């Protein structure tokens, strides 16, 4: 059973606009929008607006996506803090907040709806950010040649007190082997 068309005014569509509508619907659903009616309504609205913006040489699909981008930017600007300059950063930030805040699942129907954005939704989106590492404070860590001498003030150096014990161990090893052999050999004579 068909529901009543929600599009007003009803528009004639050729194949290109049909493909554009399909693409917009897919795109919205790719944002995890699970509410079919909402997707339909938004798609219809976007196509309707895009059709008013027809210009020579512009593909319906490109026009529709342009319209959708503009709509998303406008909605994100309502809910996210200012300061994200430019078009792409706000779109990016908004999309991240949308998915991290699970907005379509928590507030179905609100995305790009034109309704007043609930304060809770807005707060959630502002908080929803995978975050960035703390501010970078560069420290010099230039590679140094291994052959460089031990740094000044080092508490340990290549000292005789450390070198001799090992020389002593080596000579001791040789001595014990010699003594052992000599004892075994001499004992029988």
């Amino acid at each position, binding site marked *: 059973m068909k529901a009543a068309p929600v599009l007003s005014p009803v528009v004639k569509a050729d194949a290109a606009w049909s493909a554009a509508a399909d693409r917009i619907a897919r795109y919205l659903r790719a944002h995890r929008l699970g509410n079919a009616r909402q*997707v339909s309504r938004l798609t219809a609205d976007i196509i309707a607006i895009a059709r008013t913006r027809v210009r020579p040489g512009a593909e319906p699909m490109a026009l529709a996506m342009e319209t959708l981008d503009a709509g998303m930017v406008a909605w994100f600007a309502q809910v996210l803090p200012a300061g994200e300059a430019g078009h792409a950063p706000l779109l990016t930030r908004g999309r991240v907040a949308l998915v991290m805040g699970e907005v379509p699942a928590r507030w179905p129907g609100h995305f790009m709806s034109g309704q007043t954005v609930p304060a809770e939704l807005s707060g959630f989106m502002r908080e929803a950010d995978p975050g960035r590492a703390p501010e970078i*404070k560069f420290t010099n860590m230039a*590679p140094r040649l291994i052959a460089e001498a031990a740094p000044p003030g080092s508490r340990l150096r290549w000292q005789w007190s450390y070198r001799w014990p090992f020389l002593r161990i080596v000579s001791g090893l040789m001595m014990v082997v010699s003594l052992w052999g000599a004892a075994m050999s001499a004992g029988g004579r």
Partner: protein
Amino acid sequence: MGGRNVRRRPLSGTSMQLLNFDPQQLEPGRVRTRRIFTAIMVLLVTAPAVVLMADLHLRTGYDGWKLAHLIVFTVLFGLLAMGALQALLGFILRRQGGDSCRIAASVDWAADDGPLAVRTAVVMPICNEDAGRVMAGVKAIYESLEADGRLPEFDFFILSDSNDPTRWIAEEVAWAALVQELGASDRLFYRKRRVNTNKKAGNIADFCRRWGSHYRYMVVLDADSIMTGGAIVALARMMERNPGVGLIQAVPRLVNGETIFARLQQFASRLYGPVFTAGINYWQLSEANYWGHNAIIRIAPFIKHCSLPELPGDGPFGGRIMSHDYVEAALMRRAGWQVWLAADVQGSFEECPSNLIDFAQRDRRWLQGNLQHARLVVAPGMHAVSRLHFALGILSYLASPLWLAFLALSTAIAWRFKATGLTPLPVDSFADTVEWRFGTEAVLLLGLTLGLLFLPKILALLDLRSQPAEVAAFGGWSRLLAGIFLETVLFTLFAPLLMLFHTKFVVLTLCRRSVGWKTQRRGRDGQSDWRESVATHAGQTALGLVWLALAWWINPTLALWMSPILAGFVLSAPVSYFTGRIAPGLALKRAKVLLTPEESAPTPELIRLELTLATRADASAAWPAVDGGLLQAVADPCINAIHVSQLRTRENPAPANELRFAELRTRLLRDGPVALVPRDKLALLLDSDSMSRLHRDLWATPSADLASEWRAALDHQPAAGNGDVEFTDNDAMLAVK
């Protein structure tokens, strides 16, 4: 080895408490005594064996072959003796209640339980790893710290060097999901390096340069590391207590093995490890080593002294320092900072290769890195023990070609013996007072060798005698002994194979054949494969058969003596395959054979890890096998947004670059990812502007103008479903079902 350095200090209140070990007060004379004592013990065990071997040769007359045989034997037996004596020293110390000179004894654990004074970074460098496993590990560690109420004192950094786009994008998606799940956007960070200069050491150095000044310490983990919150806090507390300590290495226990090979390793390391590590600490003390992960590092001196240069010349001996950990520990020590092994910190884990071939491949990297250290043994200013670490690291791999040379020399001597027709002289020996016969001396030598080989096993069992709960955790005495028997048999078969692998790797390295870095295969991916096993071990099998025939022809007794080694060669393919399969490993686990305490009573962190891995949904599994990451990062709006949000925005891009990127984008969408070389794909993935544009252009381009891969990627996105928009054929109007 007493507690001379244990002193008392007054604590608050009226009580006096046994006070803690202070590493700064460690007397050089005492350290020296321990080391000389260890060396003399090694000597006292080695010398009789060398004399016996020398005497055996003396009976039939010396020649060049026998002299070479004796020299090789001396080196090999010395290494064997050193290992066994470390176990003996460790056993004695543990029987006495533990070494008084250990870093954990520097903290009064009962009194010192407050919050840490500074924040610590937990860093995990990764490179093309399974993102799901990495995040599951991070999650387990994070939740452990959270459960202990210590989370505010730590920040987590996942430092990616992945250059496989699909792995990289999967990491970003998994990380974002984990941040979302844990609510950790202010504490769990991800950073992908644009250029992988100097691999893992460079990855850590990059972290230090950018964020090192924010933290006093960093806990370095590996991709498969798991540490409990308690272990991490313990390491940080030991650092706080000892301002002269630059690095503390915790001993990671091997866990999560499923194949027989992996379970053998974790069983052996778990059973024999405690006595060995206690013995190692006895002589290393404040000049211990760094194993590259599961360690805490004081960042300021690390930045100042441990930035690694490239060694002069090309690989394999020049260029990038491959085994950076030993060098970093040596540099830290050279600068006067102590390096300790925390043998008794519990809750430090890692995983191990699942099969012999993967194990050998990992060894090839380590081997080249260790041989490279030959240039650093004589580097100026290094501490003598650091030089010894380098030398022992080299010897641990050179022991394989030496052992092969020993076997070849043994065979050659036997053959020459047969050719001359000589028989052993009954008394012509410099040990003629004892009047041992040739055979008696040979058996004695064999007994001494076997005694040293089995000594750590016996000591480990004796060590367990006073710990019934631990014995039960190993499955009880009968299963424990069955495990030791199985482990002994299988390691007897593995050892000659590793000898051949190492020898081949040493030769390749000396022929200046460098090795690349290969990500360790884990879980089911790490199972052995028949074709790989046969292809890898065919040469070893053939060698074993030829050698066996030769030994039999020379003297059947020689063949009998060499049979344990030659059996390893001949049976290499089936043994390697069978021990690298999961099913037999799990069957043994069900039978509680090779059981470890971590398997019988896993810590909450290990349980959490297993649960996460069992229930995780791997988003990337549904991606196309080829270029899946790139396709998703462009097509999926959510993944694209997460990816772009992590990229630096280019400021004032050069027009030439703009043109190049524009051309690449056009080709990518029109002709598909196959039209671009990997370097260009990576360049696009690293460019935030290009990734945003690609996403927009893809969705705005009619399907007919897109490459088939993109059409498939768009089709992969959720399609219009029930209730969605469609144009009906008859009225061509936008309608809603």
